[in-house]
């Protein structure tokens, strides 16, 4: 559980060479559920995108420890509001995209991969609505389809960008219970970006708290005590 899977060493992250957060040195343990916490604009999503390889680090580097010399496979769950409704894709079509990393260009998705995709949709409880238009699903339903898509990639690391944004309390609980469950069952490392302290305190083992240009790392028990939180928030009021 304590083996490091991802190590960030002197990392600066930002856009167009301009850092929004610097001096990030931390590690993510294999099999852990880590929450990246912080206010709007603190750099949470930028950090996630940099770890995914969607953004280049401004400085420093990221080391990953993959099994058997293979590169880490990431399952990415973006915010469900970012997709253009003009695409006439069903939930199944969207979930199938997770298999494209294993299917060579010019080849059809094999039946076994299709069956696996339906298994993933079933596992996230999305089978009932998976044949409907993705754009017409509720936010909670879209999140489930996107989680299924990430799982079809057979990921080592599941990265979720605000998976409970726009989702009601009951659906938030269901999504988070499911994420915890699949992490245990499939031995997946999970990183999630969130604003939701309730989610973090209940589910996260590790917290990366981005606050006013600082990066705090610790367990929920260490960082989310009233005393420690008051110290951190005092930094803000000063």
């Amino acid at each position, binding site marked *: 559980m304590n083996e490091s899977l991802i190590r960030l060493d002197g990392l600066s992250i930002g856009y167009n060479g301009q850092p929004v957060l610097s001096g990030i040195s931390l590690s993510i343990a294999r099999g852990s559920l880590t929450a990246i916490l912080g206010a709007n604009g603190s750099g949470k999503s930028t950090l996630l995108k940099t770890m995914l390889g969607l953004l280049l680090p401004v400085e420093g580097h990221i080391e990953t420890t993959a099994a058997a010399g293979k590169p880490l496979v990431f399952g990415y769950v*973006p915010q469900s509001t970012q997709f253009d409704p003009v695409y006439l894709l069903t939930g199944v079509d969207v979930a199938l995209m997770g298999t494209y990393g294993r299917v060579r260009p010019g080849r059809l998705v094999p039946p076994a991969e299709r069956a696996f995709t339906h298994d993933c949709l079933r596992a996230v409880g999305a089978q009932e609505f998976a044949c409907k238009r993705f754009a017409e699903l509720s936010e909670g339903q879209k999140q489930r389809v996107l989680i299924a898509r990430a799982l079809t990639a057979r990921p080592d690391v599941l990265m979720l960008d605000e998976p409970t944004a726009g989702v009601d309390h009951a659906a938030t609980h269901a999504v988070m219970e499911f994420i915890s469950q699949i992490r245990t069952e499939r031995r997946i490392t999970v990183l999630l970006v969130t604003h939701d302290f309730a989610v973090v305190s209940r589910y996260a083992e590790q917290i990366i708290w981005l606050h006013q240009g600082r990066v705090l790392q610790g367990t929920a028990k260490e960082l989310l005590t009233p005393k420690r939180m008051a110290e951190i928030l005092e930094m803000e009021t000063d």
Partner: protein
Amino acid sequence: METLHQILSPDFLLRNSVYTSVLVGFCCPLVGVFLVLRRLVFMGVALPQISSMGVAIALSLPLWLGYLTAHGSQSGHALAFAGSMVFTITAILLLAFLERRGQGLPEGRIGVAYVVSSALSILLLATNPYGEIGWLDLLKGEVITVSNFDLMVTGIVLTLVLAALALFHKEILLVSFDRAMAITLGKNVVFWDVLLYLLIGLTVSIAVLSVGPLIAFGFLLIPALTAHLFAHNMRQFMTIASLVGGAAAFLGFWISYQWDLPVGPTDVVLLGTLYAAGWIIAQLLPGARN
């Protein structure tokens, strides 16, 4: 019906024109679907005009270099095709690159490209002594005089485009729908973007040379927009768009031949009528629309 029998006859004098129109009608909407999906509708307007400018510049080159010629049909068409390709593909890559950088107003750039290329085409046409004789027809897209060679080139190019779209459909769709996911899956998104733009450029170039910029634009976008009203999935979207385009091309030719009307504008007006009818049906019958 007599006109229909004439058009369908293998001895019909203008059979190459029918085949070319229908080919363009079937194929352009399949590329147009991706212009609609990527919200590049304005690009669909500007590219045929830029392609026309490329034709005009390519055909002016011999004149500028001192080789005064009215262009033989094959060499002229080869030159026109080269000019059309170079300008269309350069323009689409440049406009897409600038849009990706996210600076400035993309619609403004596309508008400027459209209006300048239109004006430049007219200027080049006006200053070339052979313009009126040799290549006004090319720029207007007269579908009447299509040689076997032109038909063959159109057929080969469009078949290649369709084959590439069919083979790499899932990669192009993934990169268009969710670029970030494509990167995390290890896809070379720049390669797939460039491939799509090359296919769009090839289709626009050959369509402009075969049927002219106005009809090329009409077939690129109107069938795709019509199909989007009713399709429930991507397969239906592409199939309906292609069928609407092919059917409109044939019907347009039939109508224009019957009533002695110019083919291009007839096709576009017919497509516009189909789109308007489709929109009204979609409003009246909510169950029919997607």
